[in-house]
């Protein structure tokens, strides 16, 4: 990955600051909440200057004065203290509490996060341990317990509370630092002779800034709420006006003067709610856009099914004019596969070749009905044995999946559920697609594991996915795929993630199984060596279109499309076993995979 790509990384850590500010300036939620917070804070600091009334001056003559009483615009409390003056002073208390609490959390969290994330493993483990301890402190209780120590000074209390809040910031900083550390530019900086401190200061701090600002908004809110809560409980000096103590006093006087309770509750509620909402707005702005609601298993039905001309022999799988799109940031559907035609005949192995991002995997997933939730099939038809698959519900598709169509993924490890033993996963899916009893299914799975070349099936059956090797996991997945003797096997780069020696074994296994079961295989790959090794026919895809189809031997000898020729040329100089044709830069469409 080049430095330029890093800068364009959609990750929030690298979002250019100016665009975030612009997005914020347009977000009404951010504007309104910021305005409210600023008004309250400004009133807290400036108000007492203009309103020369001592918030603590008790005057029993004006006790419980109603709003509008001369000298007391919002009335006075039980001891005759002016409510407006007390509200303003409380706003100041809140602002100072928020600043101290969040400030301490920031200083402690960022400093320790930088240290814990940047330096060696031991430093990291120690800081992690300490902050995990801090996190399990029962915070409020400890603050109460420490009242004799703080002597009721809310600033001291908030100082301690800041330490209790710091783990959040520590976590964020440390994780981002560890991530950034891996990236090239820090390595480059180190090579070019910058000192550790310079690296931390310049590069890492700029990356962690965004998420920390978001967290700080929430922390200020928490600190303010906690200070108010403690004052409500009666902890802290009664000489310091606070929303909490005002709420508490108003509460005791609730039936006589409900407004005395309402005012502080209202301001406190607005202040803390604004901070939470501002934090949410900041997060949305930094993350670019709000997340797409996940909706899986239901692709939109094809807009225009296309009627087919007569053909001599009906293929097992017939794809016509298949087009797949994704909603872009503007909300329009952006097509990534533009009308693919493809036939797979019963019992044949067809290689679907193309570079990353050509849409081959998208096409394969469309057949399985397993496109990502945001994908939209805009037009086309996918027929299996003459039956249309597009537009079928998840339940209807389920009658094909596993039984008629099976699937082998690319990355073996991530395609097994880490929490269940290998055997139970296979038994479960076998039972879901058959009427076998648990014992029969288990015997069948053991036989299958032996068939796919696993030396000790009994042992592997009882192992967890993370206890077996990648090659072994791929064998397990193949066993799972062929368990119900499917008519069509879709293999998505089945060997790409494996070691070269294991690759050959897996290809042999696939070839044997195909011959044994007589199934058709749609082999998605970017590797011409695999195609030459395994396939009879091939189709070449480029930028969402099929540019060439034909028999493998013929295509290799006389490629028709320029693109095929380029691809072939680029690999024929190399060793055919290890063939990685030039990979186009991954664009965002492939990320959806």
């Amino acid at each position, binding site marked *: 990955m080049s430095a330029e790509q890093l800068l364009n990384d959609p990750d929030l850590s690298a979002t250019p600051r100016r665009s975030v500010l612009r997005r914020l300036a347009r977000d009404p939620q951010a504007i309104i909440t910021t305005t409210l917070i600023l008004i309250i804070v400004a009133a807290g600091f400036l108000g007492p200057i203009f309103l020369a009334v001592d918030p603590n001056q008790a005057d029993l003559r004006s006790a419980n004065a109603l709003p509008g009483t001369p000298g007391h615009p919002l009335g006075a409390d039980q001891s005759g203290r002016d409510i407006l003056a007390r509200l303003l002073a409380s706003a100041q208390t809140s602002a100072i509490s928020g600043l101290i609490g969040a400030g301490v959390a920031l200083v402690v969290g960022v400093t320790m996060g930088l240290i814990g994330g940047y330096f060696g493993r031991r430093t990291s483990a120690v800081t992690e341990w300490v902050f995990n301890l801090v996190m399990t402190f029962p915070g409020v209780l400890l603050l109460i317990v420490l*009242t*004799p120590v703080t002597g009721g000074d809310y600033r001291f209390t908030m100082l301690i509370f800041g330490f209790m809040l710091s783990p959040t910031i520590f976590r964020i900083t440390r994780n981002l630092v560890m991530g950034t550390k891996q990236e090239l530019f820090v390595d480059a900086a180190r090579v070019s002779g910058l000192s550790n401190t310079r690296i931390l200061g310049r590069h890492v701090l700029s990356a962690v800034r965004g998420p920390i600002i978001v967290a700080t908004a929430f922390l200020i809110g928490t600190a303010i709420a906690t200070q108010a809560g403690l004052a409500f409980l009666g902890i802290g000096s009664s000489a310091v006006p606070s929303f909490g103590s005002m709420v508490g006093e108003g509460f005791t006087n609730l039936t006589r003067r409900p407004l005395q*309770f309402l005012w502080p509750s209202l301001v*406190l509620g607005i202040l803390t709610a604004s901070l939470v909402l501002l934090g949410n707005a900041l997060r949305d702005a930094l993350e670019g856009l709000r997340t797409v609601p996940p909706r899986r298993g239901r692709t939109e039905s094809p807009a225009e099914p296309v009627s087919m001309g007569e053909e001599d022999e009906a293929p097992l799988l017939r794809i016509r004019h298949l087009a797949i799109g994704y909603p872009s940031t503007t909300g329009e559907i952006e097509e990534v596969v533009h009308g693919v035609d493809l036939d797979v005949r019963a019992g044949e192995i067809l290689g679907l070749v193309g570079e990353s991002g050509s849409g081959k995997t998208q096409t394969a997933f469309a057949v399985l009905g397993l496109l990502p939730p945001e994908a939209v099939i805009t037009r086309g038809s996918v027929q299996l044995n003459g039956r249309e698959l597009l537009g079928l519900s998840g339940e209807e598709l389920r009658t094909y*999946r596993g039984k008629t169509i*099976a699937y082998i*993924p690319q*990355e073996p490890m991530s395609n097994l559920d880490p*929490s269940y033993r290998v055997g139970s996963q296979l038994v479960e899916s076998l039972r879901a697609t058959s009427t076998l009893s648990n014992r029969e299914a288990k015997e069948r799975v053991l036989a299958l594991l032996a068939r796919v070349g696993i030396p000790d099936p009994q042992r592997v059956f009882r192992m967890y996915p993370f206890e077996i090797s990648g090659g072994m996991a791929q064998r397990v997945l193949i066993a799972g795929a062929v368990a119900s003797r499917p008519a069509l096997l879709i293999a998505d780069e089945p060997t790409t993630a494996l070691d070269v020696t294991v690759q050959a074994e897996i290809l042999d296994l696939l070839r044997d199984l195909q011959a044994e079961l007589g199934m058709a295989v749609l082999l998605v790959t970017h590797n011409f060596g695999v195609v030459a090794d395994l396939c009879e026919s091939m189709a070449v895809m480029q930028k969402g279109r099929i540019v060439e189809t034909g028999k493998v031997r013929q295509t290799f000898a006389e490629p028709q499309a320029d693109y095929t020729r380029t691809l072939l040329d680029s690999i024929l100089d190399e060793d055919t076993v290890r063939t990685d044709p030039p990979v186009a830069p991954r664009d965002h469409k492939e990320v959806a995979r």
Partner: protein
Amino acid sequence: MAAYILRRFVAGIVLAVLVTFITYLLLATTFDSVVRALLGPAGTDETVAAKTTQLGWDRPILVQYGDWLLHAVQGDLGRSLFTSEPVIPAVSQRLSVTLSIVLVALVLSVLLSIVLGVTAAVRGGIVDRLAQGISLVGMLIPGLLLSIGLVLVFAITLKVLPATGYTAPGDDFGRYLAAITIPVFVLVVAGTASMSAQVRGAMIGELRKDYVRTLEARGLSRRAIILKHVLRNAAAPAVTVLGFEFITMLGGAIFIEKVFALPGYGTFSLNSALRGDVPVILGITAFSVMLVVFVNLLVDLAIGWLTPKARML
């Protein structure tokens, strides 16, 4: 697995010792004023010194703490300085009141969060936005104001629930339920607001994993995949939050006890802290830390059971 539990348990013990030690250190700075408060205005420098010696507070701090720890291990946390009440029965009696509220609230929050979080993640769209809206509202309303509002409506205006007071479940279960309804509701609102967001996030992250697609390709029903596979894997991060949520609820219960005049742990700590009742404060700290350690151990056990990989770590 046994080694894993043992390691977590030892870490918990270390935490308990550390927290009580830090608390002791901090409290030690106030010993002088505590003794003066204990003796009242009649206390002279001599009587203060004598009392300090009597309490053992003139010894080196490490010796004092070691002595306290030694007794604590043997199940002796001393007596209150002001009421001479033995600390252990006093604290556990109040704790049972608080736990009879917090545990009910925790269980309800967990159930609600799972339903809300899973539905939001799986359904998406409007259901998701609705669930997120509910969660946001729950987060925005300060629990203190919510409890007072509910008291106003249900206790003072409608008179269907008691405004204050507590009845033990063993004495009269119906009255117990009535007494805890509003407090539990307030805790559940806050708990569900934060936990359902966690469940939702974990579910969304898990739903996007490769194995979900592969299981689906093998013909498993979506329902089975979500309930058996996705939920189990998403549960581990959510369970971690559960541990923190328990601590948060213990803290929240303090405010609620004040509003509803419940004779719980929070009220007790508050009064003891304001008086500077050192043995009680230390006892409360020890109890809560052990409680947190115990809950975290349960969390670790649950995670170990849910995710086999965690057992290896």
